[in-house]
């Protein structure tokens, strides 16, 4: 193979590599954009859910912090309040799923009432 042929082959090889790299890069970019669009779509449609989930997690964490803080204050009332905080946070999380609260009431067969709920 003479020198000219070798030089031509090297040029073709270099060109092919550049083309291959460009195609690859474009593919990466395209797939990145596609993924970005998917992510964007997902985040658009689930913003509320994600926010709620994140916030709930933060609340739970904060509730634990409060538990520690109140335990440090070491009054029984504060401890109690702190425990309730965690419990209610869990309830709040559960309530976000559908029909989470079913079964809290049923038909009463009693002729007597312990209290009346009429708003205030």
């Amino acid at each position, binding site marked *: 193979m003479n020198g000219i042929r070798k030089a031509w082959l090297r040029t073709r090889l270099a060109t092919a590599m550049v083309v291959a790299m460009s195609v690859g890069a474009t593919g990466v970019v395209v797939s990145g954009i596609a993924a970005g669009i998917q992510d964007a779509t997902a985040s658009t449609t689930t913003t*509320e859910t994600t926010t*709620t989930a994140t*916030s*709930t997690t933060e*609340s739970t964490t*904060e*509730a634990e*912090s*409060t538990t520690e*803080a*109140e335990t440090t*204050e070491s009054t029984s*009332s*504060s401890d*109690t*309040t*702190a425990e*309730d*905080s965690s419990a*209610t*946070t869990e*309830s*709040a999380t*559960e*309530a*976000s799923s*559908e*029909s*989470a*609260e*079913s*079964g*809290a*009431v*049923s*038909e*009463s*067969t*009693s002729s*007597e*009432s*312990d*209290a*009346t*709920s*009429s*708003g*205030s």
Partner: protein
Amino acid sequence: MMRAAREWHLWSTTARLVVDREDALEDALEIAHRELARIDMVASRFRADSELNRIAARQASGVTVSGLLAVLIRRGVEAAQLTGGLVDPTLGRSMNGIGYDRDIRLVLGDDRPVRAVISSRPGWQSMQLRGRYLTVPGHLALDLGATAKAVAADLVAGEITRRLGCGVLLSLGGDIATAGPEPADGWHVTVQDAPGEPAGRVQVRAGAAVATSSTVRRRWLRGGEQMHHILDPRTGRPAAPVWRTVSVAASSCFLANSFATAAIIHGDAAPGWLARRAPARLVDQHGRVITVGGWPTESTADQDVPVEEVRHG
């Protein structure tokens, strides 16, 4: 065991405590009075010496609050999360704008014009509570009135059970929490707007709760307009009175109250919104009763208005 009950006046409404052991009533009352006084001292908007008012001037730069106030504020934020911001703990200025800036008994005689206060960004998303460190932008004022009474019912009922081991039902103006063992014949609660109006009676599972939000209570005239105390944060004005009352049952009084209040603000969309969340009973302005989410259907025997069960997919 005989159950025993006591009623007293509290926060411009009526409190009622029922225990399933007669011998526990006096101790239970002592706990209730003490804990409710603590909550009032911490969260009242109407007393200058409450912690809520004492920290107001420093909340913009950040302030450490007591553990109890942190719990109450956190419940307010959770209520906002659960209701898409319809129950917002930062509506103090809006509430003042419609005239509810004092005890409701003092508001009734004041007829100055209404001022609607709306925040461009939901207030609850602008505040921050990390542990007990609170930051609230200066243009906002906390008002925990939408949730504090229900949270108080949960906390105090739970505290009585923990101390005395008895079954407890505590009603704070119709926000009803239960705790501890269930009485042999269960807890029974009547839901009714006013005497002579459609009534329903339900058995409440031990540990569960019922809360009612109303547009016919705590009403006053301001600037010639009829006001009530449930604000729509989107308008800064009282929610359109589509419903006279909404009653909700849930695993805590906090949840029941949050859902009931949000339902009032949802207006016509409330039955569908509630049906996916909790058993509920709604009464419209004509006295018609709608039940959703598994709330027991009511007998129409004593009523002259229709009662319907609505099912929402």
